[in-house]
C-alpha cells in the first residue's frame, strides 16, 4: 500500500488543475457570476480534431522527442566526463555546461539566429530543435553528472575483470546504472521543449507551428474555449509520460539520489 502513495499524490496533484480547463473547453458562454457555464458547446472539443491542431501536435511531438533524445545523448557524454573523471578545469567545464541555463535563452537565441539564417536552418524544424538544445542540455548534463558521480568507478573495472570490453562495459554496466537518471532528464528536456514558445516563434518564424504557438494565438484573440481545449491537448502528453516514468520519479532511484548530491 505504501508504495502507491507517491504515484497517487503525483496523479492527484497533476490532474486537479486540469478540471477547470475541461469546463472551459465545453463552455460556449461563461460570465460572472455564473458558477457553471451558461451554454455548452462542442466547438472546443471539435477543435482537438482540427487539421491545424493535429499538425501542430505532430510537429510538437517530433520536436520535443528529437530534443529529448539529442539532449539525453549530449548530456550523457558530458555528464560522464564531469561526473566520473577529474581533469584540470573541470569546474570551468561544469560551469560552462550550466551557463546556457543561467543566461536568458532569448538573448542567446537572438545572436544565434544570424547563423541559423546563414546556414538555412531558420524557419525549419531542424533549426528549432537545435535552438531548443540550448535550454535543455544543461539540465540533462547536471542530472547525468550527478548520476555518474554516484556510480562506483570500480564497477566498470569489475566488469572488465569479467571479460567485458569498453563497449560492453558502457552498454551493459554503466548505462543500466544511470538509466533512471537518463529517463528522468530526457523527460525534463521533453517538457522544456514541449512548452517552449519564444524560441519556436523566433527561429521557426511562424512556419514551424507547435501547440504553444496555437495556444498563444487563441489567448491573444480572447477565445477561451479554444485556449482551454488547446491547453488540454498540451497537458495530456506530459501526463502520459509521467505515468510511464513515475516509477523513476518517486522512490529512491539513483536519479533522485543524484539530485540529492547536487
Amino acid at each position, binding site marked *: 500500500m505504501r508504495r502507491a502513495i507517491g504515484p497517487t499524490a503525483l496523479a492527484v496533484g497533476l490532474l486537479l488543475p486540469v478540471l477547470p480547463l475541461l469546463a472551459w473547453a465545453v463552455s460556449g458562454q461563461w460570465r460572472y457570476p455564473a458558477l457553471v457555464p451558461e451554454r455548452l458547446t462542442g466547438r472546443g472539443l471539435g477543435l482537438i480534431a482540427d487539421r491545424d491542431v493535429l499538425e501542430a501536435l505532430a510537429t510538437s511531438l517530433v520536436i520535443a522527442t528529437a530534443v529529448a533524445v539529442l539532449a539525453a545523448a549530449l548530456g550523457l557524454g558530458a555528464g560522464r566526463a564531469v561526473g566520473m573523471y577529474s581533469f584540470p578545469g573541470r569546474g570551468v567545464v561544469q560551469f560552462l555546461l550550466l551557463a546556457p541555463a543561467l543566461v536568458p535563452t532569448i538573448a542567446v537565441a537572438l545572436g544565434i539566429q544570424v547563423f541559423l539564417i546563414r546556414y538555412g536552418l531558420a524557419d525549419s524544424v531542424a533549426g528549432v530543435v537545435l535552438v531548443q538544445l540550448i535550454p535543455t542540455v544543461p539540465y540533462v548534463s547536471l542530472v547525468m553528472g550527478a548520476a555518474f558521480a554516484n556510480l*562506483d568507478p570500480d564497477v566498470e*573495472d569489475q*566488469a*572488465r*575483470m*569479467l*571479460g567485458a570490453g569498453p563497449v*560492453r562495459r558502457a552498454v551493459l554496466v554503466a548505462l543500466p*546504472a544511470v538509466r533512471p537518471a537518463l529517463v528522468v532528464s530526457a523527460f525534463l528536456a521533453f517538457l522544456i521543449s514541449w512548452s517552449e514558445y519564444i524560441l519556436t516563434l523566433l527561429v521557426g518564424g511562424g512556419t514551424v507551428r507547435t501547440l504553444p504557438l496555437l495556444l498563444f494565438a487563441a489567448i491573444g484573440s480572447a477565445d477561451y474555449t479554444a485556449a482551454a481545449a488547446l491547453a488540454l491537448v498540451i497537458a495530456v502528453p506530459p501526463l502520459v509520460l509521467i505515468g510511464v516514468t513515475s516509477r523513476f520519479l518517486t522512490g529512491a532511484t539513483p536519479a533522485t539520489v543524484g539530485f540529492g548530491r547536487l
Partner: protein
Amino acid sequence: MSAATGRADLVVEGVRVGYRPGCPVVDDIDLTVGAGTLTALLGPSGCGKTTLLKAVAGLITLQSGEVRVGGSSVIELPAERRPVGLVFQKPLLFPHLSVGDNVAFGLRMRGLPRRARRERVTRMLELVELPGLTGRRVGELSGGQEQRVALARALVLDPRVLLLDEPFSQLDADLRARMRELLGRVQRDLGITTLFVTHDQQEAVDVADHVALMLDGRIEAHGPPVEFYSRPATLRVARFLGGTNEIPGTVSGREFTCDLGTLEVPSGLADGPGVLVVRPEALCPGAAPTNLSGAGNVVPATVTAVRFRGTHQTAELRLGGALPATMTLSPAFRIAEGEEISVRLPVPACHVVPFEHTPQSIPSPPTVEGERSRA
C-alpha cells in the same frame, strides 16, 4: 625469498608501479605463488598491496617488470583478457541483474550459450553455499551473501589465478571468520592459485599457505605463517606482527650478551650485534631471583602496570630494572603493580634479528577493535 612449493603459477618479477614517474607506489616487487596455493599479501593500509594486485590484474599499467601467469607473460594482455579473476573489497554486483545473471556475466561475455551458463552458475552458487538463489534480486542479499556471489562470479570463469582484495573487510568479525573458512574450503576444492590481500594478520595466518609481508611498497618477508611469528626475518617484520620485546646485544655462538647479562639463544644465529626478539606470550613468570646473571635465561623484572584484556592480561615490565617489556599472562594469574618478579625467556622462543637503523615509526597493524570502528 621464493616460498613457492612445486610449480609457480603466478610470478611477479621486478614490478614497479607508480602514478608519477620517480615516485613508485610499488617498488621492485618479486613474488611467487605456487600452483594451487594461497598466499596472503599482508601489509598496513597504504603500503601498496591493492596497487600491486591491480597491476597483476592489468587494471594499472606497470612502469617496469614482468607478470607471468602459468608460465607465460600477461603484460601485453588487457585486463579483460587476462586469465585472472579479481574480487574487490566491495561486492560490486550489478544491481540491474539477478544473482544468477551476475554470476553468469563473465560467461555471457565469453559467448557461452544460455543453457551451459545456467548449469555452471547453479554449480558455482552451490559451491559458495548459496544454492537456489539464481533468481534472487541483488538488493535482497546480505553483506556476506553479496560477497559470496562476487566470489562465485569470479570463480565461474575458472581463472588461472584468483586475486582477492580484502574481500571480507567490510563484514563483521564473526561473519568474516566464517567467510575465511568458506574461502579456504573453496580454494582447496578447486585447487586455485590465490593471492589474497589483507591488512589483518589473523586473517592472513588463518587462510594462507604463505604470507608475504609488504611494507612501504616492498616485500619485506615471505614464508609460511609460523616463521613470521617464531623467526621473523627483520626487526620491521617483528614489529609489524606486534607485541614483540626487543633486547639489543651481541650474539656469539649460542650466547647473547646484553645489559641483562648473558642469555642463551638457539643455534644457527649469525654472530655480531643484533636485537633479541621474544613475544610477550612466550615469557614465563617466576619468583624473585637472587642474582642478575641471566643464568637459565631468568632475569629480574619490576611490574610497572597490569592490564586486564578479557581473555588474557598483560603486564608491563622493566627487565633488569631498565629495559621495557610486555608479558602476556592468563587472566587468573595473580600479579600486582610494583611487584618484583623474575621472568624466564625460553631458549626456543628467543630469536635474534639484525640491527636496523630505522625509526620506531613502523606502521603498526590495526587492532581488531580499531578495525571494527573503521568499518
